[in-house]
């Protein structure tokens, strides 16, 4: 709060005497966040150094230092989960970015058919991920599923989506794409409406094709937005648990165990609190690095504008 008391630029000065009020406005939210997020975070850091399996003992069985981290990193299921996470998130976000951007271009305009199309396309955003997993479990089921039935009309014999280890990974990617492409679509659509119409007009007067003006005008202008969207999507996809839970339960075997799902089973099925905390802090380090990068980029763009 000392910051507010320091000499501020003139236009700020008259606000300064209000600061006790403003602090009072801020405190309730900070209080809740510190209690609900800060304390468990510290607690989790402590847990990561403890040997504690809740089903064996109601309290910790001692300090093990970095033992849990070593144990997790060497665990085969964890390694497989990391690999799965990279494959699933990596392919899903590439498809989502391309598809979402493409659809945003195709569905632009203010005519009523386009407005209806846009309304339909954003529906998956409001559907609970648990329900999305459920409905795709029905769609992809090898007996009652609609997907293979529809594929048979175009002469394709569909695979046993959820029963085969490789196709189960593809299924998880499909559901991620189904749920999240609308987000990319929506954000890029909003970004497109922000590009001044005159830019395209003068470009076409200068003889530029649509493709050229897309590459030279839209892409540079949308680049910050696209990068932000990509990284937001990457983090959310890595963190997704609900849809995998209802779609595959991590199976068959460990085929669709992702990092989040692995930590979930470790912590809330096996109740191995120490290992789960260590695994989640490894995950956290990665997420923090990704977020720090986004934030650094954002600040750079804001100051350069």
């Amino acid at each position, binding site marked *: 709060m000392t*910051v*507010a008391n320091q000499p501020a630029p003139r*236009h*700020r000065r*008259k606000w300064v005497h*209000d*600061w006790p009020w*403003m*602090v009072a*406005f*801020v405190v309730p*939210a900070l209080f*809740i*966040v510190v209690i*609900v*997020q800060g304390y*468990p975070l510290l607690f*989790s850091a402590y*847990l990561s150094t403890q040997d504690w399996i809740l089903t064996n003992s109601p309290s910790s069985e001692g300090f093990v230092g970095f033992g849990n981290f070593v144990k997790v990193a060497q665990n085969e299921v964890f390694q497989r989960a990391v690999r799965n996470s990279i494959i699933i998130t990596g392919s899903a976000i590439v498809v989502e970015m391309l598809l979402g951007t493409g*659809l945003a271009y*195709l569905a632009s305009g203010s005519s009523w058919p386009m407005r209806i*199309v846009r*309304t*339909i*396309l*954003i*529906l*998956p*955003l*409001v*559907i*609970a991920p*648990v*329900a999305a997993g459920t*409905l795709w479990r*029905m*769609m992809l089921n090898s007996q*009652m599923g*609609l997907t293979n*039935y529809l594929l048979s009309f175009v002469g394709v014999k569909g695979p046993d989506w959820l029963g085969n280890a490789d196709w189960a990974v593809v299924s998880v990617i499909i559901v991620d794409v*189904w749920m999240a492409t*609308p987000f990319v679509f*929506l*954000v890029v659509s909003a*970004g497109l409406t922000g590009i001044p119409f005159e830019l395209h007009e003068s470009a076409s007067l200068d003889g530029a094709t649509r493709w050229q003006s897309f590459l030279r005008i839209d892409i540079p202008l949308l680049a910050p*937005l696209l990068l932000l969207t990509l990284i937001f999507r990457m983090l959310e996809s890595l*963190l997704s*648990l609900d849809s995998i839970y*209802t779609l595959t*339960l991590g199976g068959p075997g460990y085929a669709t165990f992702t*990092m*989040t799902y692995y*930590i979930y089973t470790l912590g*809330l099925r096996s109740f191995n609190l120490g290992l*789960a*905390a260590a695994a*989640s802090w490894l*995950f*956290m380090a990665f997420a923090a690095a990704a*977020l720090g990068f986004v934030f650094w980029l954002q600040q750079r763009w804001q100051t350069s504008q």
Partner: protein
Amino acid sequence: MAPSSTLKSPASGKVKRSGHSRKLFLKILRVLVLTIACLAVLIPLAYLVINSLKLQADMYTTPPIIIPRRITFEHFQTAFGNPKTLRYLSNSLIVASVTTAVTVIVSTLCAYGLARLGLRARWLALIIFVFLFIRFYPRITTVIPYFLVMRDFSLLDTVWAIIIGHLGITIPFVTWLMLIVFQDLPREVEEAAMVDGAGPLQRFWRVALPMAAPGVASAAILTAFLSWNEFLIASSVAKRQAQTLSIAVAGFVTDKGIQWGPMAATAVIMIVPMILFALFVQRYLVRGITLGAVKG
């Protein structure tokens, strides 16, 4: 590709004609792609609704029955006849509405305070980073300690444990969103009110809040969706009494098998009100989702 266009203008030059048919081709392609995209969204949803109305005997057939000859409300009766489902429904409603109300009040105040505190840009950036971080870090990290904390306060299996857990996510998120809104408001109006002798509370309530109202609506709607759909926190602290609909839907999936009918019916109960709500408030929803990304 487009014979009709060539027939209509037989006299026109070659360049113009190929340009014309190319345009028509692109137009057809556009309609085709958009139709497929819409079907890809709608077909799975329709299939879920159909399955919730199918007879048990029609459920597990190859090829699947798309338009059932006989429909039944048995699965909804099973769902609604079960006092448990009603409790899940009311739990979901309580959690979503309390979470939304508290979040909007606390976060809007906090965002206004932060925006008007006269903080240096660097401090503000740090606070925004912390909030953004809380929005995106692996939530699974805090879920297990949170479970232990709730156990120690003997709040396990109560809606309060879920609500408090949700608040931990929604407050930082909405504060971040509202901070963007308040920073965009013109300060001159408030400064004029200040000259007229309006205190901080009055300025917030009478001047800033009405201007920020659309943003508040967006934030409230997003919070309600987030809380209604949330699974991880709810499932970690609620095992029986306090279960919400999302846990109920996930609960039909077991290692032994799946009760498709009741699961589909419960999923429909969970999804359909939200879709109708989304159609109703679409404008605010879209604004809320894009605000953070576009302005962020």
